[in-house]
């Protein structure tokens, strides 16, 4: 296990400090997220999981330290210049962040219309392909207010991927979902990573899913990060880590009836 960022990582946090209203959330976080792998940021409520994703997207800035995305320190560039970095990032927000005045179709079509020169026919085809990939082919005319929690997550995932980002940030993709939906989202994320090679950063407190899907885990403890593979964290001597992982497993057993990943579709993703 390590608390140091790797030099070859796609995304690096280097000695990041951040406090909200005087309360320190991140106290010198150092970690790296390898290219093309699934990294899960694990931690209790208020540990700073979402904050790390927002730091990487440039939505908040740290009091000190560096957040390097593909070689660019997002803390050192102006807001206007951040868009060039964000073009390489897709973000799935915890609540979806879908524009509630637009239909599911228009939510996915918006980034395509804004950033590509594709014809309307090509956009329609791309949006329908993306919606089919997440199992929402029949939901394109619905408004976000008419969707279930799982459908919102999947729509948000499809929108985050529609421009083929190099990095995908997923904020609590399993929160508030039933076990079947959890496995469906988990399966989707694993297939997206396997087939598209996207660097994936997932914030979660769902320990069982994390252990199944993560190539690397960043565990936030007391404002600092402990990094390792699932096996390395399991082998840790730290009692807090054991307690967190064991309690998480126990919680998972109550809400989750199996270890296998449910695959929603068999055809290639996107």
């Amino acid at each position, binding site marked *: 296990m390590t608390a140091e960022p790797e030099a070859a990582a796609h995304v690096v946090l280097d000695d990041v400090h951040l406090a909200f209203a005087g309360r320190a959330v991140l106290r010198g976080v150092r970690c790296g997220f390898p290219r093309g792998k699934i990294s899960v940021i694990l931690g209790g409520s208020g540990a700073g999981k979402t904050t790390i994703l927002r730091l990487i*997207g440039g939505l908040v800035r740290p009091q000190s330290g560096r957040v390097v995305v593909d070689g660019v320190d997002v803390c050192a560039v102006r807001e206007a210049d951040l868009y060039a970095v964000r073009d390489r990032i897709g973000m799935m927000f915890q609540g979806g962040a879908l524009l509630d005045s637009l239909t599911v179709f228009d939510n996915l079509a918006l*980034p395509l219309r804004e*950033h590509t020169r594709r014809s309307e026919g090509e956009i329609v085809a791309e949006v329908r392909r993306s919606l089919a990939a997440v199992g929402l082919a029949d939901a394109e005319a619905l408004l976000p207010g008419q969707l279930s929690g799982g459908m919102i997550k999947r729509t948000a995932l499809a929108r985050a991927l529609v421009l083929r980002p190099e990095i995908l940030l997923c904020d609590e993709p399993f929160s508030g979902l039933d076990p079947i939906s959890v496995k469906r989202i988990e399966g989707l994320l694993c297939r997206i990573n396997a087939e598209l090679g996207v660097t994936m950063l997932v914030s979660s407190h769902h320990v069982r899913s994390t252990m199944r899907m993560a190539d690397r885990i960043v565990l936030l403890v007391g404002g600092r990060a402990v990094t390792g593979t699932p096996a390395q964290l399991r082998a840790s001597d730290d009692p807090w880590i054991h307690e967190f992982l064991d309690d998480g497993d126990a919680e998972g057993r109550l809400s989750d009836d199996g270890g296998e990943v449910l695959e929603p579709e068999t055809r290639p993703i996107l």
Partner: protein
Amino acid sequence: MSDFLRRFGAWCVAFVEELGRITLFAARILRAVVTPPPRLRPFLDEIYNLGVLSLVIICVCGGAVGMVLALQGYDTLVRFGAEESLGAVIGLSLIRELGPVLTALLTTGRAGSATAAEIGAMVRTEQLDGLRMMSIDPMHLVVTPKALAMIAVMPLLSALFIVSGLAGGYAVGVGLKGVDAGAYWSSLEANVVFRDDIVGSFLKAGVFGVIVGLVSTYRGFTCTPTATGVSRATTSTVVVSSVAVLIADYFITALWGS
């Protein structure tokens, strides 16, 4: 005493800082206006939301104000035997003052608060952050069309309010009180001066549109992302816009009249 001065000084500093922030916000809107691509579709949608959906309330309120002016004006004018001037009294009252001011206050309550609440809800549900992460500037796509639409619809709604008021005044003055119809319109035509009255009225409505558009979008955009924060943004939009409209009305009247 020193405590009072300290608090007053802190309030003054906070007020000036807020003015600075809202000025910078206005500059960002101006920059978004000249930044391609033009947001014609969202702008037209907002014209509909802010303007077309306000037509009924503007017509009803304008008509009611005109009818009250006719009742009050007739009773006063008849004492001096000047009831033939009823059209001029109602017209000048509406065109110079009541039309733009009451339209601005009504629009603040209906459309300004809705604008602040909508943008505030988008802040709260991370929709604006979602746009940022898609490399879409929310100032460009969301805020600027709403602010521009408010500026565009205010003079038009004010004109409609005035016309409705004249119609309401006609109904009561001519229909109920028996004022001569020709005298009603001819006194209005004879006393309304294009530059002083009509242009001044549109100028006021335009300035009020800027105030309401700017305050409502700023309050929504900068609200705390909680239910209480959105509620406060909505309330403060109505209060700040209304007070600012009335203060601006005084200065425009004083400067334009002189």
